[in-house]
């Protein structure tokens, strides 16, 4: 069972603020999802090739060639705050 505590923990990892009522609803939702996963886990998958990707494509590379980067105007056009060519963010501790 997913409890509200787990929901709050996951929300904190994802930097999401949620209300108590939402936490209860999400707990039920997540529980449903996990139950469905449990169901899948019970399937007989012998002979089924494991996959890590849904596309039937592989080996998509690029050559090691320089492409133009953004101009400073472009790079900072969406910055909330900037200072001397740096993105300025609330202070974080190391």
């Amino acid at each position: 069972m997913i409890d509200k505590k787990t929901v709050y923990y996951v929300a904190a990892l994802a930097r999401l603020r949620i209300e108590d009522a939402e936490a209860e609803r999400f707990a039920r939702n997540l529980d449903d999802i996990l139950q469905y996963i449990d169901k899948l886990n019970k399937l007989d998958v012998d002979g089924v090739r494991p996959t890590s990707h849904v596309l039937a494509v592989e080996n998509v590379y690029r050559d090691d060639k320089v492409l133009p980067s953004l101009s400073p105007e472009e790079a900072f056009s969406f910055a909330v705050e900037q200072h001397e060519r740096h993105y300025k963010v609330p202070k974080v501790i190391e």
Partner: protein
Amino acid sequence: MVSAPGGLMSQTGNMDFETVIGLEVHLQLKTQTKIFCGCRNVFGSEANANVCPVCLGLPGSLPVLNRQVLLDGIKVGLALNCDINRFVKFDRKNYYYPDLPKGYQISQYDFPIAKKGWLEFPCEGRSKRVGITRAHLEEDAGKLIHDDRLNCTLVDYNRTGTPLVEIVSEPDMHSPQEAYDYLTALKLTLSYLNVSDCDMEKGSLRCDANVSIRPVGQTKLGTKAELKNMNSFSAVKRAVEHEVERQTRLVLSGGQVVQETLLWDDAQSITVPMRSKEDAHDYRYFPEPDLVPFTLTAAEVESVQIGLPELPSAKLGRIRQSYGINEYDATILIQDRSLADFFEDCARLYSDYKNICNWINVAVLKEIRSRKVGLADLPLKPETLAALIQRVDDGTISNLVGKDILSGLVDSGKSVDTVIAEQGLAQISDDAALEKVLDEVIAANPKTVAEVKAGKTAAMGFFVGQAMKKMQGKANPKKLNEMLTRRFQNG
């Protein structure tokens, strides 16, 4: 009690501890472009000059793998005797921090490019083998500058997306010295591959250490602490020493080591717990949906294997054997792949290998160090050095003059014979001229003659010095000595 090989024993009362160290090394690759976008991969640009929607993590952008990064990763793996995973996929490592604009780092989780390797190196007079658990590819994060005055953090995303190989060792090291020697050997091997600058000062090689202690005889590992922020190999050594002491004291006083990340403060020689990422260790890895998987053919891996250079340990053995160079001198030569090549180029032109080695390891290295360049940037041709040594051998110039003019040869690019002629450096070996000068100095110093005749043969050096002075230092000292010996032997 038998101590563990190389183990650091902290003997206190009836408790003996063994130190266990595992190292994680991050290596920045020096590809032209970043791992998942075409932005330039260079150090020292203006802030945020090399950024694009991909490395800024803008919605809608898609990463595409730089093929060279994959090839370099295979190269590193093979050089460390790893198995190469022919199925390659990337995973998301999720955490929120401003140095990571996407909110996740693209890394490799369950299928690292390389696994199960080892590195063997000389350590405290014996050979030590450390297992390599894995080496995987990932992207570097941006650089944060904490600004107290503005009370904010400034972010430069130039480094974001720089290709990294993370090399994780087994916890096979049992003393700070072993950790130091492992790092030295690892860096040497990596430098031969020419895939990275391997420069700790510029951050292209970084090291974290996992340190724990356990009672001697216990097989289960103790709780480890992770040490970060060491800026040199010697700082790694100091940090590990400090941490072993801290843990030992803690356990002996009845405490317990807790798993935590500690930042090493080299100036104060202390560790401080890292606060910022303490609740971020739940990374919730999952397969990266933006990158399709990669399958390597056996032929692709094989061709990287074939292209590997001769690695340091193999080169050491071969140089010792082929040229009869002792271990000490050969070890100096192989510290730089181009230095060893230079030696071998000289050896094709001149056959007294030991003599070439002496010239390179003393005179040439002095030039390299005084100019603060690598051998590659020192304009000295093997032909020039070989010619110089030959002119010393055949007595045209003295050994001292030879050492003196090396610097000028490097600067001017002129031939050895030209420099000797231009500066009038050739020794006077002409018998008649030398005998004449000796006649003069002997005649002028009857007192010294008497001393030599009385058995004080060391006084002959005085005549050599006087003759040299008269001939402006160009007299062949070997010949002078021979002539003097002959004269006094004959009475």
